[in-house]
């Protein structure tokens, strides 16, 4: 099979971006919308075609899925250290193609309704295309350097989209926060890349994850707390991944990023960009697994576990519906991370990896749906707060039903896709790390509870009086909802265990009845509690929160992690460290520079007269110069 045409997958959105960017003054709103949708449709068609070709029609080699690399040489650092630009086709990149193109296409269609009448409509589509281009480039990257370039491009386009409502100070602040926090994390990523490049002499995934690269990486002895230098590099890379994927303690930007338009939250902060960290670990999985006997994976697992727990607890107490979803996203990505962290490599040992990727896929669909549903609600009610909602089921049937499907899926209700992928995660943790298994199980219950708290509060509960009667959103918004609702069920029946495994061989998966029944019980328990509390207006929630007292206040304030960051940066870094640097900079550095600058100006003033405009002076200088040169060269040397 020849997959070289997948070059087009990033290039089409890029072309759309260039086109819309250049002509954004001159294109009418609906035309730019259709251009964006048309571009993304072709990308989606290509991606689906690639997936079908790859999984069904490409013969396996030695029982493994083959890897195809098409690249051009872009830059040579040394004879061995080269940077290529190209596309890499293997199970996870093909899977990601489907995820990104599906969600992006849905968001493109949805935004035609949601952003209708917005002043910067064309700009919005240009940014969406730029984002899709960057994300596709990231997914298809053939080497660490390429992934880094696109990683930063993703960061930039995310910055542009979060700060899209740039008249709002909060949106600008959120965009800056997201950019700075992820940039800080990316610094670790870059150092990790450079370490790998320096010690292993290659950025290429094929080499690094192949037997030679692993063997070369294993040669380094432990230098710090049981980590070799390559192990440390992997931890640093994971830092970059944790920043993008909003893992504790670098998660603080994600809730604020909800200031962006809701379709953006669905695309970037639910389904695609935030899973880039998971994708990075999966992409480098053989390295993570074999270097230092998987020490780096332990960190991945525990960071994931802590994040999933904290986020789920915080999500219980939030009232802004997008923030609930944001914390839910963080929690679910924690799931993917911990599943990767407990995974092994061969055969059935790789169930964690498989479960992580599967959950990535199903989560993208149902979380995208949840965000788009929330957008539909916000579109109708013009508020983000739960208190302003209630009883909306009567007015918005399609939104309500699709939202319910997504909620059931994320809660792990049998028959929905989330059930299958979560089940695999539970199996993986159960066999490899018991403490994390209990965390995972507990969080599954919390997830079901907060998700149905959200659902009941929006669509049932009290009958709020609205200024104008809410109505169902236009077709451009409901069609993506329905499509994603279908996609929240169907992927559960895909043979993921045979498609996406670390060794690319695949195994026969089966549902463990015991695990399934435990998970279902926990999930139904959470749903039942939520029903009991929130289906009708009750005073239980108030009583419970009062009973938890301080803990509730702490949780509601997100454990004061933002405040902690602010305290450290303002009162310690800015005041003591930066303060003294600033003094040195202002007095010594600036002083020197001003002196140089002033003396330059003075000097330039002083020699002004030399350029007199008289040709005899010029001749004098000319001849004088010759004479001086002759004297200097002949007599002084």
């Amino acid at each position, binding site marked *: 099979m020849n997959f070289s045409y997948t070059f087009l997958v990033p290039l089409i959105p890029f072309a759309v971006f260039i086109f819309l960017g250049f002509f954004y003054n001159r294109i009418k709103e609906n035309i730019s919308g259709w251009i964006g949708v048309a571009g993304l449709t072709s990308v989606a068609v290509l991606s689906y075609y690639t997936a079908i070709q790859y999984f069904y029609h490409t013969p396996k080699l030695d029982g493994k899925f083959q890897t195809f690399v098409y690249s051009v040489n872009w*830059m040579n650092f040394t004879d061995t250290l080269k940077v290529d630009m190209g596309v890499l086709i293997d199970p996870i990149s093909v899977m990601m193609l489907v995820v990104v193109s599906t969600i992006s296409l849905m968001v493109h269609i949805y935004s035609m309704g949601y952003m209708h009448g917005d002043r910067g409509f064309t700009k919005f589509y240009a940014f969406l295309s730029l984002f899709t281009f960057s994300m596709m480039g990231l997914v298809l990257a053939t080497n660490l350097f390429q992934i880094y370039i696109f990683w930063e491009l993703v960061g930039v386009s995310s910055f542009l989209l979060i700060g899209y409502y740039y008249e709002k100070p909060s949106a600008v602040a959120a965009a800056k926060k997201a950019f700075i926090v992820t940039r800080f994390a990316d610094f670790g990523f870059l150092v990790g890349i450079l370490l790998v490049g320096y010690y292993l002499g290659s950025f290429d995934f094929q080499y690094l994850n192949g037997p030679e690269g692993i063997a070369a990486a294993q040669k380094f002895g432990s230098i710090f707390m049981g980590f070799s230098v390559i192990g440390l590099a992997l931890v640093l890379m994971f830092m970059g991944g944790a920043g993008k994927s909003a893992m504790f303690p670098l998660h603080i930007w994600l809730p604020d990023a909800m200031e962006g338009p809701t379709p953006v939250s669905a695309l970037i902060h639910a389904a695609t960009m935030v899973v880039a960290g998971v994708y990075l670990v999966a992409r480098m999985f053989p390295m993570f697994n074999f270097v230092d006997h998987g020490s780096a994976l332990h960190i991945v697992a525990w960071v994931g576990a802590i994040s999933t727990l904290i986020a789920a607890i915080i999500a219980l107490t939030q009232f802004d519906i997008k923030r609930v979803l944001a914390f839910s996203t963080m929690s679910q990505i924690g799931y993917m991370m911990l599943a990767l962290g407990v995974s092994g490599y061969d055969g059935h040992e790789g169930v964690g990896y498989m479960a992580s990727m599967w959950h990535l896929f199903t989560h993208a669909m149902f979380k995208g749906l949840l965000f788009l549903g929330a957008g539909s609600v916000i579109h109708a009610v013009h508020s983000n707060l739960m208190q302003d909602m209630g009883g909306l089921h009567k007015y918005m049937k399609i939104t309500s039903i699709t939202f319910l499907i997504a909620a059931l899926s994320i809660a792990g209700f049998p028959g929905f896709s989330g059930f299958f992928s979560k089940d695999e995660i539970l199996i993986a943790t159960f066999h490899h790390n018991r403490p994390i298994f209990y965390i995972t199980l507990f969080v599954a219950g919390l997830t079901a509870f907060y998700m149905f708290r959200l659902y009941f509060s929006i669509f049932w509960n009290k009958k709020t009086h609205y200024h104008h009667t809410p109505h169902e959103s236009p077709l451009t918004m409901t069609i993506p909802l329905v499509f994603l609702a279908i996609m929240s069920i169907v992927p559960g029946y895909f043979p993921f265990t045979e498609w996406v495994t670390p060794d690319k061989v695949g195994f026969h998966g089966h549902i463990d009845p015991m695990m399934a029944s435990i998970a279902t019980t926990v999930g139904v328990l959470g749903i039942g509690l939520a029903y009991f509390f929130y289906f009708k207006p009750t005073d239980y929630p108030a009583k419970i929160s009062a009973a938890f007292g301080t803990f509730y206040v702490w949780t509601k304030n997100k454990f004061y992690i933002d405040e902690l960051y602010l305290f450290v940066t303002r009162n310690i870094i800015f005041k003591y460290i930066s303060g003294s640097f600033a003094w040195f900079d202002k007095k010594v550095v600036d002083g020197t520079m001003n002196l140089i*600058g002033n003396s*330059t*100006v003075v*000097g*330039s*003033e002083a*020699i*002004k007269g030399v*350029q007199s*405009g008289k*040709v005899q*002076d*010029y*001749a004098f*200088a*000319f*001849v*004088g*110069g*010759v004479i001086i*040169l*002759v004297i*200097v*060269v*002949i007599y002084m*040397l």
Partner: protein
Amino acid sequence: MRHEIILLVLILILLVFEIFTKTEQKKSLIYLALGLFAIHTITGFFQTTDGQLFGGSFRTNPLIHFFKNVLNVGVLIILLQSTDWLRDKVAHLNKIPEFFILLFSSLIGMYFMISSGDFLMFYIGLELSTLPLVALVAYNSADIKGTEAAVKLIMTAALASAISLFGMTMLYATGGSLFFNMISYQLQVSPLAIMGLVFFFSGVAFKISLAPFHFWTADVYEGAPIGITSYLSVISKGAAIFILTTILFKVLPVLSDYWKYIVWGVAVLTMFIGNLFALRQQNMKRFLAFSSIAQAGFILMGVINGDAFGATSIIYFVMIYIFSNLGAFGVVQAISSATGKENMDDYVGLYRTNPKLSLVMLMALFSLAGIPPVAGFFGKFFLYTAAAEKGYYLLVFLAVVNVTISLYYYLLPVRAMFLRKSDDAIPYFKSNWPMRLGLLLAVAGIFVIGLYSPIYNYIVELSKLL
């Protein structure tokens, strides 16, 4: 030899047409000349034979061939950018063909100069390239400034060529031959030879406008028509640097201890003088004149290297410099032909009214200042490397200081265009297609040369032939 022959035929064709075209139809000759020269530029890229003529006075090789092509592309851009001006601003229609005939004659002089195999051919080329330029500087004879500039140019040029001719005689006296390859064998270090070197160097330094032989530059650049100013600042300078490099590296390596000192001192002086004067210029042409003096100082960092790598860095930088400077001059030309304004203050608020022009100017100035990712950065980078490779760290340091100074004044027009607001900014105007094509070529050059590394590798290969 093909370059020379075709261009000569081209001149003859234009002469014939000039005779047989009625005065009111002379404007059509602009497009004829443009088309013919475009064809000439393209044919230049085809493979040609190498070798020598006139017993070795004239030689070509792929490097020389390549450099002539670079000059051709530069001249083509200049012609494209001058079209508007020639069509609309020239009072006497009869003079239009003269512009091309004189310019092409000067270009032939450049060809001979860079192809020269002995000092005689070199001198003929030098003169042939200078004399038509004097006429071109005074092209608009009604303009007092232009006439003054021409007088200054011819007087200084005469002085310079007298001095360099004197230098050549001294080299002939000590080397025993006019042929480059003979001199390189026979020349011994002696005070006379050193004096010959200094005199010769000073004459060529005049062409490159190195300090203290640069005084004519600002006055002439300001007085000349903008097209000619760009020609003087890129083509004339580029060719002179090329031949200076060849002669210093290949003909006078015996004296390299001495000319390296001269180059060192002249480089530092040129950079500082160019930058300090550029700092306070208001007229854009004068501003670019001093900036180009400073740039020549940077180029000397490659000369001081003395090896193939130095030659590579020089040729690479000169290429980039041609495109960057033509981008900047093109914008000045476009604005001048549309509105007649040439001062930096007139550019205030330009971005709001003419965003594309401002962006071209921005790219060109960034490239001249050496800000990544445009090509100028890579060009400067290799020049630094060339000097640092031979241990001239102080020179590199002084160059960095100068780059910092230059950043300030290169950003002044940028600030005027992008940051400052004005109610009477130059209103939006649309240039003719040749002008837009010319600017497009310049910008494309700025990006492609910097980012497409095979060009650099190609120059590395060619420089071995120097």
